[in-house]
């Protein structure tokens, strides 16, 4: 028993060490920098101060923090809304068809992330195919802009993160016992009610995982708003980059990062707490004949 514990520790040690050196320590450095004054050469000054943190409580950030929050939340919500029916449909498909459908989900990863975003730039461009099609159909005014808006950021974020939401939801749906839906119908529930009251709780872990893997990277988005966002579509990630590369003010960038890190850690802790509670549920679908 004791030896087993020690063995476990030994095996965990390398990854733990890796996490401490490359994740925990840098995070602590970022936290520490947030309490340092800036020096004019792009470095970090002497002594400690709370002035930097106080400095970010500024009107120029409220809009960006707000936009970062709603874009990330909306991205997460839309991804879940789209991924849940997709995960359900793939899980219910014939086993042979499932592999093919899953291939379709991951096929975008074969193309570089940057190239796919540039493709969206082309599509959304004022002279782009999508824009022209919309104008032709009378769905957009000729002078309307699609690119460089928060809407464009939202669209590309949903596009980018959707596969990451489908994967955990499908994984959970595939293990779901679909006879439970028949049982719900049998007991008087309509299609939608059975789906909401029996299927969704049944794939809860998959949904929570999907929330994490979409919401966290969405909060930290930098490339997508940088390329399709324009000044009206900037997010916190862009501001941090500006503070580092343009202003060369590391403490200021650190202070902004602290906000972002806390915004990521808090929901993650909440989800992990929710996921760890009903451990037993996983082994439920019983001894079948």
């Amino acid at each position, binding site marked *: 028993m004791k030896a087993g514990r020690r063995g476990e520790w030994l095996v965990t040690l390398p990854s733990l060490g890796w996490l401490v050196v490359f994740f925990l320590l840098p995070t602590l450095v970022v936290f520490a920098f947030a309490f340092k004054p800036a020096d004019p050469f792009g470095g970090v000054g002497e002594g400690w101060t709370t002035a930097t943190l106080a400095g970010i409580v500024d009107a120029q950030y409220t809009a960006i923090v707000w936009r970062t929050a709603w874009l990330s939340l909306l991205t997460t919500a839309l991804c879940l809304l789209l991924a849940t029916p997709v995960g359900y449909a793939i899980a219910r498909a014939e086993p042979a068809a499932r592999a093919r459908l899953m291939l379709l989900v991951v096929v975008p990863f074969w193309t570089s992330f940057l190239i796919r975003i540039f493709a969206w730039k082309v599509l959304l461009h004022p002279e782009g195919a999508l824009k022209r099609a919309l104008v032709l159909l009378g769905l957009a005014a000729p002078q309307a802009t699609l690119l460089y808006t928060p809407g464009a950021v939202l669209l590309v974020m949903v596009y980018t993160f959707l596969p990451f939401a489908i994967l955990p939801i499908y994984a959970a749906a595939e293990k779901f*016992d679909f*006879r*439970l839906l*028949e*049982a*719900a*119908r*049998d*007991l*008087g*529930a*309509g299609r939608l*009610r059975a789906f909401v009251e*029996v299927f969704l*709780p*049944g794939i*809860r872990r998959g949904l929570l995982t999907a929330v994490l893997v979409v919401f966290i990277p969405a909060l930290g988005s930098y490339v997508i708003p940088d390329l399709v966002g324009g000044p009206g579509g900037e997010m916190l990630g862009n501001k941090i980059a500006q503070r580092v590369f343009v202003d060369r003010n590391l403490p200021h960038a650190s202070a902004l990062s602290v906000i972002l890190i806390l915004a990521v850690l808090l929901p993650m802790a909440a989800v992990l707490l929710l996921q760890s509670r*009903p451990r*037993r*549920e996983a*082994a*439920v*679908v*019983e*001894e*079948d*004949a």
Partner: protein
Amino acid sequence: MASFLEIEGVSKSFGPLKAVEGVSLEIRKGEFFSLLGPSGCGKTTLLRMLAGFETPDAGRIRIDGEDVTALPPNRRNVNTIFQSYALFPHLTVRENIAFGPRVAGWPRDRIQDEVARLLSLTQLEDQARKKPAEISGGQKQRVAIARALINKPDVLLLDEPLAALDLKLRQRMLIELDLLHDQFGITFLYVTHDQGEAMSLSDRIAIMRNGRIEQVGPPAEIYEAPRTSFVAAFIGDTNFLEGRVAEIVAGDYCRLEVDGFPPIVCFNDKQIGQGRTVSLSLRPEKLRMWREKPEDDRRHNIVPGRVEDVIYLGSHTKYWVRVEEHRLAVFEQHNRFLLDETPTRWKQDVWVSWHADDAFMLEAYSEKDEALTDRPPERVGEAS
């Protein structure tokens, strides 16, 4: 009595496979009716059509006069007990039972009262707050029953509900099911491949085979008067002998010619004509074994044979007796166990007898039925 659940010419195919073919049944209100058959005979498909999970390709299903053929499962007053129980894992026992009433929108206190009543009826009060994963198989079974019965269905469909339980628990649940049926007076439609369950519970049984009904009747009638050799072979054990009707005797009796046997007298209730080929079904428990030739009263058939195998089965012993090229299975009860009685052994010469009324003749007998009958393994290197 008028029929309550009417199934009229129902058929269902899955691609080239005809799962159910032209099945018609009339089930009375409050009846305990079983669908019995080997796996793949279509009984579960028929049940799923009654529940509304499958739509028949042809035919109608009526409950209490109302045509429900096209109604979705949630609009039928029919509930199912699934073989896997299909309890909702994220809900407690109490919430599982309350699911139906909650969906139906019963008032809160009525739900509470009814759930409490069913919890006590199924002795699940102590489990009410537990999740399905935390209770035993028998308790899950009871939750599934309570969850279905609380809706007061017109018909309760049971899909092999005891298949996942061990023998002792199965026997206890069998009694509980029987009691519940008496208590609620709901029509039960029970699907099983276990003839013991069907025989002990049912008012009537329908034997299914290849998507069709072979015979419908009370358990005793099915057992004592099977209409086809399939039914005879499927229900209980039997010996089949191929023969030919040689002569009609005294109206209801006939004399049969079977290779290797003296002429056999048999009750001919089906009035099978002279010269027809038949299979004679002999139940092993209707055969008696003697060491001395018994007295011939002309109502019994008596044949000499030799014991080839003895299989002790606890409540009875099964003997394989060779009569020329045939092997007959004979059951002997141990109800007269005496210490000084010498047990029958291998290679012993015996006489086998049965009453002319205890065997029945069947016209249809095919290769497929053969597979259902229990045959002794041929012994290697043994001269007969």
